[in-house]
């Protein structure tokens, strides 16, 4: 029996039991269903993506000309601060949490997360913090950059900076609560027939991500609380006028905020490892290497933070140590990239929106990876630190990487979440516009930085105008690219073609239940009958009990019947 036949049988067996479904009102309540929470996270994060994106286009409009002729310099700094903070803490990180919430229990055959109430609590901390932060632009927004280095941050508006600190503390707490949940759920709630090494790679990447959140975020909270004392109570932890040391803040801040890069990219590494095998119809190449490289990245990510401080108050030995550790991260990251390429190689690739964004992810992220090794080199970083070269680098990682990954995930799991297919032509238009806009916006920034354009400036040397105009045009194309996506999502959710339970013939567990899944996910807990990526492998006939099942542990469930 071919796999497709096996799967279609599985599917038809589910069609007889359409479980109870959520009503739209549920999505506006304190609901403890991980699927509801996942979608709440995703929708909210996309709203903030829109807000942060509008800010980005305002910034690019200001930078179309060398003079400060569009917004005031104060407003410009508020925009760049909010843009950075929102995109990191209210877009990419919550979008990752949304995917993790939705997918982890389904992928490991659980009925919910380990701590459903805490899960809902974690989500509901986001809207107040996010709305406060976004609205601060109307009265007094923070303007010391998303890094908020003292002494500048404690000398510009107290209200704005206070809001920034407060919001980040709330968002950080939410992130910790989420991570505790992911970590516990993945480790303890897998179906008994699933050892760690049969777990989908997305779960591995979330395991690594959660560990980073749990180790890093408390340190950020510490830095923020001390900064708040300096700001509001006049202490001098970081204030040199009172004998404080602003460099200590930088160490504490980056101890979290470098790992934050991996908190933002690792979940999407996981997503890509899921999507590529399904649409290439091949097993993932080097499962264990990819799984362990997530852990390696997570560990190394904790000992590289001072690479953000190569021109700051760091002595030579420190600069050299952090240069080497940073460069070493290229090795596990390279393993992932090459494994994805090898998975696609020789496959039968379905060029749909999900797969195109996944391939775009690999192609764009690798550019950020290459420039990442470059900026790790101390003598070179001394030249480009705090320039547009770094702006280019980080956007290739976080836009070309994370954002492409999130779009790939949405296109891939949309049928799971809604039971309907996306409109492929619109999705492909979205992909092409995003690809062009992204490269037009960020590629010229490499040259700008190398030539001498520093970042976070509203006015610049007129010699840089032509390239800046290109960047601005690119950013407008990115704005336009949101339209086909929005139309597609809304239209497909309401009127899209029925998807069936498993439109991609995927093998991971989340596809072995109905789409959208019933409230309790699985009528009977599933039993693993094949590995998550066993494409093209001769599968065990249905009537033979799969070797991994131990009936004592699974009293109620027989294999997917």
């Amino acid at each position, binding site marked *: 029996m071919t796999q497709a036949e096996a799967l279609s049988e599985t599917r038809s067996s589910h069609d007889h039991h359409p479980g109870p479904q959520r009503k739209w009102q549920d999505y506006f309540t304190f609901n403890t269903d991980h699927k509801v929470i996942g979608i709440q996270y995703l929708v909210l994060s996309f709203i903030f993506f829109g807000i942060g994106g509008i800010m980005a286009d305002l910034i690019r409009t200001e930078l179309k000309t060398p003079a*400060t002729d569009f917004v005031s*310099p*104060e407003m410009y*700094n508020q925009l760049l601060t909010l843009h950075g903070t929102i995109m990191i803490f209210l877009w990419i990180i919550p979008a990752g949490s949304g995917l993790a919430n939705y997918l982890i229990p389904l992928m490991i055959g659980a009925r919910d997360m380990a701590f459903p109430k805490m899960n809902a609590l974690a989500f509901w901390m986001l809207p107040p913090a996010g709305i406060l932060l976004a609205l601060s632009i109307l009265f007094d927004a923070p303007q010391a*950059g998303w890094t908020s*280095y003292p*002494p*500048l941050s404690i000398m510009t508006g107290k209200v704005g900076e206070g809001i920034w600190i407060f919001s980040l503390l709330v968002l950080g707490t939410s992130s910790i609560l989420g991570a505790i949940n992911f970590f516990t759920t993945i480790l303890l709630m897998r179906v008994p027939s699933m050892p760690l090494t049969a777990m989908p790679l997305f779960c591995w990447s979330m395991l690594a991500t959660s560990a980073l959140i749990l180790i890093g975020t408390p340190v950020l909270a510490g830095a923020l609380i001390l900064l708040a004392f300096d700001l509001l109570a006049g202490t001098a932890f970081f204030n*040199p*006028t009172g004998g404080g*040391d602003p*460099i200590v803040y930088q160490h504490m801040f980056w101890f979290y905020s470098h790992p934050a890069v991996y908190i933002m990219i690792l979940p999407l590494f996981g997503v890509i490892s899921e999507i590529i095998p399904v649409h*290439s119809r*091949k*097993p993932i190449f*080097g*499962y264990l290497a990819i799984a362990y490289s997530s852990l390696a990245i997570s560990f190394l990510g904790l000992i590289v933070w001072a690479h953000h401080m190569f*021109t*700051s*108050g*760091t*002595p*030579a030995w420190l600069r050299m140590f952090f*240069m080497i550790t940073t460069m070493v991260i*290229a*090795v596990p990251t*390279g393993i992932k990239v*090459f494994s994805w*390429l090898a998975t*696609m190689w020789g*496959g*039968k*690739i379905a*060029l749909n929106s999900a797969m195109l964004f996944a*391939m775009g992810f690999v*192609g764009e992220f*690798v550019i950020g990876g*290459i*420039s990442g*090794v*470059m900026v790790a*080199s*101390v*003598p*070179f970083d*001394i*030249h480009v*630190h*705090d*320039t547009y070269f770094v702006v280019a680098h980080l956007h290739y990682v976080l836009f070309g990487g994370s954002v492409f990954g999130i779009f790939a995930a949405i296109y891939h799991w949309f049928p799971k979440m809604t039971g309907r297919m996306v409109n492929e032509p619109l999705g492909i238009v979205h992909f092409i516009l995003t690809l062009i806009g992204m490269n037009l916006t960020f590629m010229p920034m490499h040259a700008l930085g190398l*030539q*001498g354009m*520093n970042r*976070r400036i*509203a*006015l610049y*040397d007129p010699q840089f105008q032509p390239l800046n105009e290109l960047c601005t045009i690119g950013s407008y194309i990115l704005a336009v690219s949101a339209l086909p996506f929005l139309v597609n999502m809304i239209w497909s959710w309401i009127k899209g073609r029925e998807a069936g339970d498993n439109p991609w013939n995927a093998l991971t567990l989340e596809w072995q239940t109905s789409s959208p899944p019933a409230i309790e996910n699985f009528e009977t807990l599933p039993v693993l009958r094949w590995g998550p*990526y066993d*494409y*093209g492998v001769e599968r065990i006939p249905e009537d033979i009990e799969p070797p991994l099942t131990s009936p004592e542990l699974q009293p109620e469930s027989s294999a997917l019947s």
Partner: protein
Amino acid sequence: MLAGIALTLVSIWYGQHHGLMPVQASEDAALVDGLFDTMMIVGTGIFLLVEGVILICLFKFRRRPGDDTDGPPIAGNIPLEILWTAIPVVIVLVIGVYSFEVYRIEGGFDPEAAEQSPIQVAMVSNSDVSTPLMAPQHKGHHHLALGVGATPDEMTTAPDLTVNVLGLQYAWIFTYPDTGVTTGELHLPAGKDVKLVIKAQDVLHAFWLPQFRLKQDAIPGQDAELRFTPQRVGEYPIICAELCGPYHGAMGSKLYVQEADEFDQWLQQQVASQSNADSTVALQPSEPTDADYLSAMADHVGVDASVLERLPHTLSSPSELVPVSLVGPQG
């Protein structure tokens, strides 16, 4: 095979002809560019390889209509995986060692800064200038050598010229301690071993010379240095590269690298004009208001009038502009 050779050749060519770097105004700059070119060669190679594979997959391995069978079940290949782990390890090792060497030759490991600081502390406390910002910090940090110091050859010799650089919102102020000259733009003699001692008065700034590939943050309470030999006569931008407030983008100045005799001439002129004009700023920091203080500097610094106009609002509290010795340790 053929594609591999073509890819290698293209990478090697592009790595050296990207034309992305500005003019090289010192030997350090040439050194850094050599490193960058090498990374560009490797980077271009990896870029072409990855994008090439993706394009091949896009065209050659796309699913044909009507074919819904799976691809070959290849789940790994240990030798191949070892290869693509080992190659990045080697690349990283080579770039790491190369970077280390460039940093060493530039003077990154110069221990002088560590030796220097206690002397500076002594000097500062001897001078009668009140330095509330500087005094307590020196004790805590004199063990850190910050910035780029002397090249290994120059380690034992004193620099030909020392200039104190002070960053403040939103200007750079340069003081030549040997003569007491204070200016808003930096003049340096070509071919001389120059040491800049970099301080900040209010917030973090960063002193960046793109044509010299040198940058160092100016940190309140913590001295840093950049030591280098300008080789190429000309006019170069000085840029503040660390966000320091709304007018951060306007905080810049000019570096003029001059032939040694021209530089001497310029310095004499400055000595002459400053001894009968505003030596108060340099030698007796009374307490000028922010606006007075900065407008005196304005023509040197090249901050435009609209920026100055707004300064009193951004620097409202007098404590933000503490008078600091603009002269530094007197020789």
